[in-house]
């Protein structure tokens, strides 16, 4: 039973970190209806920022979050003003392929600068420590911290979107850009802000994830796909949806490992051929496809 609780706990914690990754994507999609293939690349940039700042300044990786947030915010705004603004005028296919170009660009820039090797955080306040909270649940401290901070970041974004004038303006831009412009909302600036917030949240997620996941220039695509799945499950443009769907996806990725454990322990011979762990991400994609087809606006979607 222990292992079940452990995988549940690990799934929920990882899911919280993942939902922070998806938050940026859902904000950007919600405000301007553009699918950002480069999303995972921003995560990678956040991971490298966390890693390198920690190494250069000799501080704990968890303390580099403000740096990552600032880098992400500026990068997001720069991307919007320098590139995405022009893409928005074109048809949908040009938008998709344009952000794909951005993804290739950032990935190969990282490859050129940092090289293809995996890098990981080896020292830190929390790295390698874990808590045993009874019932056989062992929780790595890094994941717990990541989940907690992700929760905090989520709360901050939710408050910003729902309790401030800027948030109202963002929502108005999302619902009807033309109407918002007539009401005197600077929609162009709101779009740039959405990119800034979106990228900042994903780079923060990167700086959190780098504590327990090694980084290389190719890491982005996996997280882009996971983020797509989360956003589709939770509903495009829905902030609470992203949070709950993130936890669901986290559980989906952890439970196959538990299934394997069962088959090995109880010797279900018919299952031993292919370990379920190799289908870890496939179940995510299956869930994503089924939700897309059955309920395109997602579980919590408000915009369609």
């Amino acid at each position, binding site marked *: 039973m222990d292992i079940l609780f452990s995988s549940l706990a690990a799934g929920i914690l990882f899911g919280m970190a993942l939902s922070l990754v998806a938050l940026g994507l859902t904000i950007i999609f919600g405000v301007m209806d553009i699918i950002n293939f480069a999303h995972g690349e921003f995560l990678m940039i956040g991971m490298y920022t966390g890693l390198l700042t920690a190494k250069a300044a000799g501080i704990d990786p968890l303390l580099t979050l403000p740096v990552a947030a600032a880098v992400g915010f500026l990068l997001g705004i720069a991307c919007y003003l320098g590139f995405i603004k022009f893409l928005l005028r074109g048809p949908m*296919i*040009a938008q998709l392929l344009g952000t794909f170009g951005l993804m*290739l660009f950032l990935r*190969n820039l990282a490859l*050129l600068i940092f090289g293809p090797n995996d890098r990981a955080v080896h020292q830190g306040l929390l790295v390698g420590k874990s808590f045993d909270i009874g019932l056989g649940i062992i929780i790595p401290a890094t994941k717990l911290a990541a989940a907690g901070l992700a929760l905090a970041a989520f709360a901050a974004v939710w408050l910003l979107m729902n309790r401030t004038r800027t948030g109202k303006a963002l929502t108005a831009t999302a619902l009807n850009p033309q109407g918002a412009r007539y009401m005197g909302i600077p929609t162009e600036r709101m779009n740039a802000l959405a990119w800034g917030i979106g990228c900042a949240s994903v780079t923060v997620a990167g700086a959190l994830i780098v504590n327990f996941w090694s980084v290389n220039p190719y890491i982005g695509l996996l997280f882009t796909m996971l983020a797509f799945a989360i956003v589709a499950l939770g509903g495009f443009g829905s902030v609470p949806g992203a949070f709950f769907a993130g936890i669901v996806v986290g559980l989906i990725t952890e439970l196959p490992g538990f299934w394997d454990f069962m088959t090995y322990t109880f010797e279900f011979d018919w299952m031993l051929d292919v370990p379920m762990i190799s289908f870890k991400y496939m179940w995510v*994609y299956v869930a994503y496809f089924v939700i897309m087809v059955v309920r395109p606006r997602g579980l919590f979607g408000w915009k369609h």
Partner: protein
Amino acid sequence: MEALKNAFDFSDFPRSDLIIAILVGAAFLIFPLFPHSAFAIATMIQFFIFSLYGMGWNTIGGYGGQVDLGKAQYVGIGAYTTAVMLIRWDIPFWFSMPVGVLFSVSWSFIIGYPLFRLKGHYFAIATIATSLVLKDLFEVWDFVGAARGLEISPIKYAPPDFLRLIFREDVYYYYVIFAFFLLGILYMNWFRKSRLGFQLRAIKDNESVAQSLGINVHWAKIKTYAIATAFVSVVGSFHACYIKNIEPEDTMSLNLSILIALMAMLGGAGSLWGPIIGAGVLIPLKSYLKEWLGASAGLVGIDLIIYAAIIMVISAAEPRGIWGLVEKIRRRRSR
């Protein structure tokens, strides 16, 4: 008979275009007779392969306006069918290729039916999901070699083997794919003037109007999706015989799907020459940048940085592609 006449009828293009097309075609025909490097002919074969992929994508994505980012799964199905049948049961290309098309088209009907209930972005990302699921399955399926992939060893056969399409020199492959390429152009020329072609353009312009005109929108999309699939699957089978070493990563990945869409978009989606122009620009660019900058200069990634920058500039500045630019100039001149 009528269909055949339509396929050979290019009279709605300006004469200058046709002269250029015939000259370029003739140049392609005699290209292998002149001295050339092995690299050049390999690039030419890649160009033909990708312009055929682009033509297939262009039916659904260009004429129909349904952005499909899952075409690579059908490349995979075609390639794997041919490779498995050749390796396990020694079935030649010309028999395994139709079987591959059959598999691909059946699969496309199965997933196309639910997929086409979606529109726009939702459709695009759902196609990515199907492609990824299939790739993950192929990566663990032992029968098709799992993640190691399959290798066709040419030693067992006596090249040139026209039945199994196993050759030692690239020239043979060049002419086989060139023949496919010409057939593809003729088919597309017929397709754009067919009933389905006109229905698709109506759907692209305004779906509800198309529906009110009595077009069965859902079924028209599914049919076109199957046509696009068949195109891609045939070329996928050829790819297996040509490359001789197939893995899930390079036959079914998302990168390939997007590259296919990119060919058509860059050249000009929804036009006959668009995918060909797109492939003619992108493929040589990609392979020569890699040759000159990537491998020899020792700078990993710089070729793809330049390539990505070009994609970004084109999609931001001229989203209708090169053919769109040509048409814009023409319209300005005729005014």
